[in-house]
């Protein structure tokens, strides 16, 4: 399963990673190799097999609808790269 540079670009956009031209080529090659190996899983007959997203035998884990204290304002913004008026400041969106 070879991955093209174009596919790498598409995936990088979905994943929000800006890549240099060199990186794109490197990743295209490496991801192709890894996927070729991972492609082995296609060999197994899984027609009536249910996927396991969880090995746990548990279900219905809930929390009671009770209010708990929130963080202090200081702790909320403790690691903020930029802040203003108690909010997180970010560049323009579009």
């Amino acid at each position, binding site marked *: 399963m070879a991955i093209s540079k174009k596919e790498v670009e598409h995936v990088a956009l979905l994943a929000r990673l800006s890549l240099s031209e060199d990186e794109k080529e490197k990743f295209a090659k490496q991801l192709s190799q890894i996927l070729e190996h991972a492609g082995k899983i296609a060999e197994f007959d899984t027609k009536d097999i249910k996927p396991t997203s969880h090995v746990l035998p548990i279900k219905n884990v809930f929390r009671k*609808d009770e209010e708990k204290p929130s963080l202090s304002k200081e702790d909320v913004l403790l690691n903020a790269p930029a802040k203003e008026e108690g*909010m997180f*400041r*970010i560049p323009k969106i579009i």
Partner: protein
Amino acid sequence: MDYEVVIGLEIHVELNTESKMFCGCSARVFGEEPNTFTCPVCLGFPGSLPVPNEKAVEYTAKIGLALNCNVAGYTKFDRKNYFYPDMPKDYQISQYDLPICYGGYVNVEMEGLAPEGSDPRGYVRRVGITRVHLEEDTGKLTHIGESGRIGGADYSLVDFNRAGVPLVEVVTEPDIRTPDEAKAFAQKLKNIIEHLGVSDCDMEEGSLRCDANVSLRPKGAKELGTKSEVKNMNSFRAIQRALAYEIERHGEVLEGGERIVQETRHWDAAKNVTMSLRSKEEAHDYRYFPEPDLVPMELSKDWIADLRKTLPELPDARKKRFMEIYKLSAYDAELLTSSKAMGDYFEECIKSYSDAKKINNLMMGELSMHLNAANLKIEESAVTPKHLVQLLKLIDDGQISGKMAKDVFKEMFETGKLPKIIVEEKGLVQISNEEEIEKIVDMVLEENQKAVEEYKSGKGRAFGFLVGQVMRLTKDSANPRLVNKILRKKLP
């Protein structure tokens, strides 16, 4: 060409639980200081994990039951992956292939002629409910710049108070055919959810939000046309107007031989148009997969049956009861049950006053008029059921006339004073003493011989003139019924 309009709605409803969907922060955050109701979980801090709010699951199932849905025996949460700064984890915990509820419907009663019908006396539109699922709300962005809008902003600020508030999404089948139907459906849904008491359903505060998918297809065609998605419709009126605009736009594009572009459009209420947000359209690929931080839910038949028993009376049943018990017309009963607060108001009145029709008339008359003029909701009215019933009793007892009642109502509405107090303060007492009225009638007859003659010669209008004269002399305080009665007796 003749086109058929096809509309489907996606309605988001914030649940009014105490705490958020996956953490213990308060869910009552509207208008609060930014970021003061947040914690590592709803801020998406590293290492934090979600634990679902039991009540939110229960509320979602309740909504589903009220919309005639099936409640799933097995259901789970999934991650919807996309980057946006109002989303703390850059994925939203939502539900993909196994929503809590699916396959329901809502009957919407419409006035007038159906687009495909022939009976002008109204029709019922059955709107299918595809699914009802549970997810988490996002935070709020404030765009800083001249316009205050996203386009052209210099930068933005993020407040995560709303992030993680439980959010239910109701998705309809594309069964809606007119903007009026869309509006009526949305109102009915709000009404049902209000009766359940699981959301504030306030469009202005954003606890009820509506998006629409619109497309046109040639009449008789099976296949759906290309749709556009309309967002940012912040009122019921906006739903109606935005959809009317969008349908017309589609029609013009298609008639011009062009194609509709599948896109998201925002309703601009000020300009009365929908607008495409032409950002570089990135193909959305949400990469849904089962949320590995949560375990599946199994909702047992018993649990669902018990929940069904807790459902309160819903608008349709309430309307039926109002017609049967209070002998109201379908029209009156429909209006009285068009919101929970309205129905509650009526029922509070009827507890201490038995004439449903009179309550209805006053509610739909003076009360609605004043509420509309002041842009208030019925639950905000200074005129409570107690006021209203007391006023009706004053009229019945002949203490004030209907005309006087209007003035009293206005005063009640403005000051919140009880009608008895207003009547006392203003000395507004109706003259119901027959002898007293007779004296005044005699006086009027004597002074208006001409009108008396006219009446005798068959001009009915003169009678009204004479009544008016009596009322004028008594400053509207004479009991009009008695004035009429005495005048008729005196005039052969």
